[in-house]
C-alpha cells in the first residue's frame, strides 16, 4: 500500500549549525549546533525555557531561524513550513498533542494528505495502513475511535503513527514522557528501540535525567538557549548532566527532617463529585492528612485529582460525602470561609485559577484579604500597607519582578508560582492543598517550592501534595495515595513505595494487598 510519502528517502544525517532564534526579549537559541545520524537516539536535555522546543520547531519548519543553517543528508535545506520538513522525512510529536479531538484516529492521520480517491476521503485505506503500521511498530490503536475517547498514552501512539504514516524516518519527540505512567514510558521506549532498529533516528526531548540516560545514545544539553555540550550516554552520569543543565551542583533529595504527625487536620469522607462534563469524577474518596505530614496523591492526570482539590478548596460541590478541616465539617462552607479557617490552596492551573494575570504582583498578593485590615479600612484600600506587605513577600520569597506594581503576566512561570505560594503560605495555613505545584518549573524553582512545602510540614501543617511526578512524590511524601478513575487505589507509607508498585496502581491494574 503506497502513501504519497512512501518515496521519502531515509534521513541519514541532519546537521544544524550556528542556529540563532530570537523572540522579543529572549534569545531562545544562541548559536546552537546539533546533529543526528541514522539509527541513533539523540536526547536534547535542558530546563524549561532552555530552548529545546524552539530548536526542534526550527528543524520541523514551524519557526524560521534568524541565523544558522540546516543540512539533511549533506545538502543544505530551508524549511518554510512543516510540509517541507515532512517531505524530507522529518516528523515531530509535540509536547502538547496536536490532535483534533472530535475527529477519528484515521481522520487525524489523513488530515492534510491528498486522498487516493481524489475528491473523496479514503479513510478505509488509511485505517488499513494504520493497522499495518501499528503492528509493525507495536503501536496498536483503533483507527475508527474518536481521539477524545482515547487515553493520553493512546493519543501519543496516534501522534507517532501520524508521523510514521507520513514516511518520517527522523522522529522528534518533544517531552513525550511528561504525560505517561512509568509502564507507558517503558512501552514508549520499546517503540523507540524498534524504530531505531529499523534505521530510523529519534530526537528525544526531556528534562528527566534517568530517562535520558536509559534511552539515548548521545545527549546534548542546552541551558539558557546555549549548547553546553554533547556526550555519549555511556560516558556520563546524572550529576554531571544536572550540573550542565542547572549550571551548579544539585541535590536530588531535599532535606527532610523527621516530624511526628499530629492530629488529623484534613479529612475527606466518601466524597463523590462530577467532572465539568457531568461524568462521575470522584466515586467514594476517603483520605486523611495529619498535621506535620505530607500525603502525596499520585495518579495519571485526569483521574479525579483536579476535582478532589476543588472539592477540598470549596470550588466544587460534592454530590455526596463530607470534607472536614481541623475537625469541623466544612462541606457546605464557601471557599473563602475555608481559607479563613486555615486552608491554603495552590491550584493546578496557576495561570487561570491562581492569579489574575493582568493584575499587579501586589494586587495578587491581597486577593484573599483585600477587604480586611490592614489592606482596607472602611472599604478603602490602603496602598502603604499593601506596598509594605508586597515588598516583604517579594523579598522573603525571592520573587524576580521589576516591582510590586508589575502585572503578574510579565513574570516567568516559576515566579508566578512563587507569587501564589507567597500569598497562600503567608497566611500561616494549617492545611495546604498543593496541586501540581512544580509542573512546568525548572530545577531551581522546583527546589524552592519543595523546600517551602517541607518547611510548612515542619511547622505542623497538613499537606496534600497532588502530583503526576512520581519522583516529586517519592521525595516529599510521608504517605502516598494513588488515585485511579476517581477511586483511591491504595495508601502506602513512603518507605514501602517504589515507582514500579505505584505505576501499577496508577494504571489501575493491581490493587496491592497487605
Amino acid at each position, binding site marked *: 500500500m503506497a502513501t504519497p510519502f512512501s518515496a521519502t528517502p531515509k534521513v541519514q544525517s541532519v546537521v544544524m549549525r550556528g542556529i540563532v532564534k530570537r523572540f522579543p526579549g529572549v534569545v531562545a537559541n544562541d548559536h546552537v549546533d546539533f546533529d543526528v545520524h541514522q539509527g541513533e537516539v539523540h536526547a536534547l536535555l535542558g530546563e524549561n525555557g532552555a530552548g529545546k522546543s524552539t530548536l526542534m520547531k526550527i528543524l520541523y519548519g*514551524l*519557526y524560521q531561524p534568524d541565523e544558522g543553517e540546516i543540512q539533511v543528508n549533506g545538502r543544505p535545506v530551508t524549511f518554510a513550513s512543516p510540509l517541507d520538513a515532512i517531505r524530507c522525512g522529518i516528523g515531530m510529536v509535540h509536547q502538547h498533542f496536536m490532535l483534533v479531538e472530535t*475527529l477519528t484516529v484515521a481522520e487525524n492521520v*489523513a488530515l492534510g494528505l491528498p486522498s487516493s480517491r481524489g475528491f473523496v*476521503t479514503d479513510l478505509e485505506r488509511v485505517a488499513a495502513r494504520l493497522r499495518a503500521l501499528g503492528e509493525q511498530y507495536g503501536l496498536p490503536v483503533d483507527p475508527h475511535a474518536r481521539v477524545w475517547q482515547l487515553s493520553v498514552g493512546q493519543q501519543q501512539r496516534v501522534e507517532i503513527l501520524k508521523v510514521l504514516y507520513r514516511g518520517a524516518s527522523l522522529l522528534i519527540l518533544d517531552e513525550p514522557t511528561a504525560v505517561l505512567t512509568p509502564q507507558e514510558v517503558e512501552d514508549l521506549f520499546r517503540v523507540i528501540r524498534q524504530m531505531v532498529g529499523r534505521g530510523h533516528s529519534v530526537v528525544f526531548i526531556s528534562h528527566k535525567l534517568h530517562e535520558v540516560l536509559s534511552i539515548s545514545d548521545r545527549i546534548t544539553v542546552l541551558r539558557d538557549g546555549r549548547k553546553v555540550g554533547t556526550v555519549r550516554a555511556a560516558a556520563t552520569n546524572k550529576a554531571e548532566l544536572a550540573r550542565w543543565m542547572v549550571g551548579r551542583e544539585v541535590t536530588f533529595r531535599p532535606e527532610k527532617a523527621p516530624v511526628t504527625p499530629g492530629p488529623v487536620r484534613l479529612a475527606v469522607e466518601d466524597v463523590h463529585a462530577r467532572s465539568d462534563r457531568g461524568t462521575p469524577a470522584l466515586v467514594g474518596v476517603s483520605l486523611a492528612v495529619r498535621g506535620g505530614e505530607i500525603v502525596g496523591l499520585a495518579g495519571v492526570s485526569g483521574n479525579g485529582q483536579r476535582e478532589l482539590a476543588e472539592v477540598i478548596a470549596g470550588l466544587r460541590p460534592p454530590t455526596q460525602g463530607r470534607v472536614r478541616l481541623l475537625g469541623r465539617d466544612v462541606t457546605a462552607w464557601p471557599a473563602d470561609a475555608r481559607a479563613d479557617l486555615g486552608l491554603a490552596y495552590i491550584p493546578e492551573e496557576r495561570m487561570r485559577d491562581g492569579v489574575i494575570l493582568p493584575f499587579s504582583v501586589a494586587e495578587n498578593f491581597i486577593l484573599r484579604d483585600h477587604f480586611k485590615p490592614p489592606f482596607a479600612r472602611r472599604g478603602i484600600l490602603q496602598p502603604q500597607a499593601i506596598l509594605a506587605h508586597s515588598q516583604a513577600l517579594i523579598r522573603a520569597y525571592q520573587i524576580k519582578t521589576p516591582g510590586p506594581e508589575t502585572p503578574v503576566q510579565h513574570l516567568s512561570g516559576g515566579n508566578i508560582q512563587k507569587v501564589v505560594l507567597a500569598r497562600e503560605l503567608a497566611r500561616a495555613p494549617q492545611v495546604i492543598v498543593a496541586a501540581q505545584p512544580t509542573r512546568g518549573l525548572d530545577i531551581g524553582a522546583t527546589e524552592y517550592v519543595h523546600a517551602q512545602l517541607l518547611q510548612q510540614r515542619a511547622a505542623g501543617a497538613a499537606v496534600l501534595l497532588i502530583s503526576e511526578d512520581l519522583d516529586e512524590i517519592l521525595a516529599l511524601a510521608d504517605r502516598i495515595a494513588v488515585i485511579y478513575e476517581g477511586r483511591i487505589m491504595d495508601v502506602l507509607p513512603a518507605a514501602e513505595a517504589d515507582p514500579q508498585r505505584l505505576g501499577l496502581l496508577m494504571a489501575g491494574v493491581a490493587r496491592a494487598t497487605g
Partner: protein
Amino acid sequence: MGDWGHILLGVLASGIRLATPYLYAGIGETLGQRSGVLNLGVEGQMLLGAFAAFYVTYRTGNVLGGLLAAALVGLLMGLAMAFVSVNLQAEQGISGIGFYLFGLGLSDLLFQKLLGTVDSVRGVPDAVIPGLSDLPVLGELLFRHNWMVYGAYALVPLAWFVLNKTPWGLMIKAAGENPHAADSLGVSVARVRYATVTLGGVLSAIGGASLSVGLLKIFQQNMTSGLGFIAVALVYFGGWRPVGVLLGALLFSLVNALQLWVQVLGLPIPADFAVMAPYVLTIVVLVIVVQRARPPAALARPFERE
C-alpha cells in the same frame, strides 16, 4: 380538499420557499464557523447581495447577470472579512457587526442614489418540474418553486458531503477545532479560513439575492430585517451541521409562514404577537438546543503560531 386544506398547503409551500435565504446564508456561515471564523456580518453581505442582484437585473433584464453581481459582491465582502479575521486577527464579533453596518448603510445609500423608488423585476423564473409538479399535494408543495429554492436545498447535502466525505472537510474541521494540529501537518489554516469565509460571503450574498430577485422581486431598504442574524442563530441551532441548519430554517420559516397567514386571514391574534412568534420560538429552541451542541473549539479565535 377543503379551504383549510388549501391554506395548510399554502402555509407549507411558502414555508419551504421562505427557508431559501436562511439556507444560503446559514450553510455559508456553517462552513465558516466550522473552520473557526464567526462572521456576524452575514446580514450586511445579504443586503449588498440583494441590492447588487436587483440592480443589475433591473438595469439589464438579465437575472443571471444579477446573480453574478451578487456573487462578486459577496466574494469581495467575504475576502474583506477573511482579511480582517485571518490577517489582522481582529475580534470577530465586533468586526462582523462593522461589516453588517457597512452593508446596511451602503445598500441603503446605493438604493437611494441609483434607484430611489421601489420597483419590481421579473426575477428568477419558477421552475415547474414537468410531471412531478402535477402530483397532488406534493406537486404544489415541492415542485413549483423558483430555481433558487432548489439551489438552496441542494446546498445541504453538498455541504454535508464536503464536511464529512472529503479531504477539504477534514481540513475545515481541523482548522476550527485545533488549528495548531492542522498547522503542524502543513495545512494552511489561513488558506482554509479564507476559502470558507469567502465562500460564506458569496453564499450570503446569493441568499440576499434569493430574497430580492428570487422570492419578492423587489428591493427595499433593510429588506432582510434581521434575517442574516437569524441565519447565524440557526447555525448554533443546527449544532454546526448542515442538516441541523436545514431543520432550523424550515421550522423558523414555517412558523413565519403561519404567522403571515394568521395575519392575512385576520384571525383574532394581535399582529405583533404573530410577528414575534418565530423569534420567540428561535430563542426558546436555542436555549434548549445549544446547551447540547458544542461549538468548534477554536471558533472566533484568531490563529497564530504561538
